[in-house]
């Protein structure tokens, strides 16, 4: 049986990058068998341009097909594979092995704070629930009369550019210590998506969203710990977005 199943990545020029052995320690949990999650080690032969996702694929495709994790796009745009890698929330497909210290084992586990389903898969529903609760859609009562687009200047557009990048991967919310305490806090991702509309010059529903977030579980629970900003794979300034929403609520307008 062929051993080298994982697709080699990187152009051939980069294959000159040495291969190396790395130990991955994955927190496995099979709800049909296990009472408690358990850590399992895998020694893998990997290449210089491989990502953590490649390593997980290698385990799944060559060693144990039952390893369960989500993934789709494999280049950091779909938000499927957020997980805790060496204690930090990251996308497996965007984390190059060579950027981690491969002389040490690499610990991989599911996101914290969301119900664990199997291996690296958590239940995303609570996360999407709070996203949906902030009414994340444009609210505008009238359409432009000429049947054309609404006008918006590049400056107005730039005002909320940062928060349009969100891919709803949950890396931020599940790294927030306030969310960990009881999961009732709306969480940074929901606030980011509210921000995206509160500061959109075309939107008329800002007040509604600000009222929703001006709540016991809303923006005021944020303790500015910056874990979310550090975790966001899209480089969104999450804490800043939250601060801007707080200020908008205090002012009573965006």
């Amino acid at each position, binding site marked *: 049986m062929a051993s080298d199943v994982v697709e080699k990545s990187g152009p051939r020029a980069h294959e000159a990058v040495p291969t190396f052995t790395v130990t991955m320690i994955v927190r496995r949990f099979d709800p049909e068998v296990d009472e408690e999650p358990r850590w399992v080690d895998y020694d893998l032969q990997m290449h210089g341009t491989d990502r953590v996702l490649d390593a997980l694929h290698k385990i799944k495709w060559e060693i144990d097909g039952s390893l369960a994790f989500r993934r789709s796009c494999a280049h950091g745009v779909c938000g499927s594979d957020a997980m805790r890698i060496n204690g930090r929330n990251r996308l497996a497909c965007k984390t190059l092995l060579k950027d981690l210290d491969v002389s040490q084992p690499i610990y991989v586990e599911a996101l*914290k704070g969301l119900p664990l389903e199997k291996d690296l898969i958590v239940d995303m529903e609570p996360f999407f629930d709070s996203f949906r609760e902030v009414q994340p859609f444009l609210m505008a009562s009238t359409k432009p009369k000429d049947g054309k687009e609404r006008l918006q200047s590049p400056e107005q557009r730039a005002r909320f550019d940062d928060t349009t990048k969100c891919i709803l991967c949950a890396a931020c919310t599940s790294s927030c210590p306030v969310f960990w305490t*009881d999961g009732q806090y709306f969480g940074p991702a929901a606030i980011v998506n509210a921000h995206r509309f509160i500061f959109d010059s075309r939107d008329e529903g800002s007040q509604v969203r600000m009222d929703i977030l001006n709540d016991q579980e809303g923006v005021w629970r944020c303790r500015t710990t910056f874990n979310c900003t550090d975790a966001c794979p899209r480089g969104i300034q999450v804490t800043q977005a939250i601060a801007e929403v707080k200020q908008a609520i205090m002012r009573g307008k965006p």
Partner: protein
Amino acid sequence: MTTSIESPRAARTVRRGGVNWEKWGWIYMRVSGVALVVLIFGHLFVNLMIGDGVKALDFAFVGGKLSNPFWQVWDTLMLWLALIHGANGMRTITNDYAHNRLVGVVVKGAILAATVVLIILGTLVVYTFDPCPAGAPTDLLPTFCTGG
């Protein structure tokens, strides 16, 4: 440590109208924080750094301070701002960690009670304080009780 929560985002109760305590609490923490920096560091500086520092602390020292209206106001402000700031902070922390409603209510009740009692007590002390109680040994009293 458990790594996941059984049911995050339990059904939420609709917010009652009226004053938004979360927002004002948040603002209060910041405003009082700024004021407390001045008050507390002033307090600590005077008590611990000037003269002989902690060694100079005694009834006479306190009595001297508390008979001065400036320090009376200072201490009252500090007392109120700090206690409410601290109590509100403790309330936040309780909200974070008390999963059981009853526990939360009890803890917050205790914080509230302690705070109210101490604020009243402290305020009374500051304003009803007699720096020269009759019958006290004069060497313990501020000099102005005996002197001119």
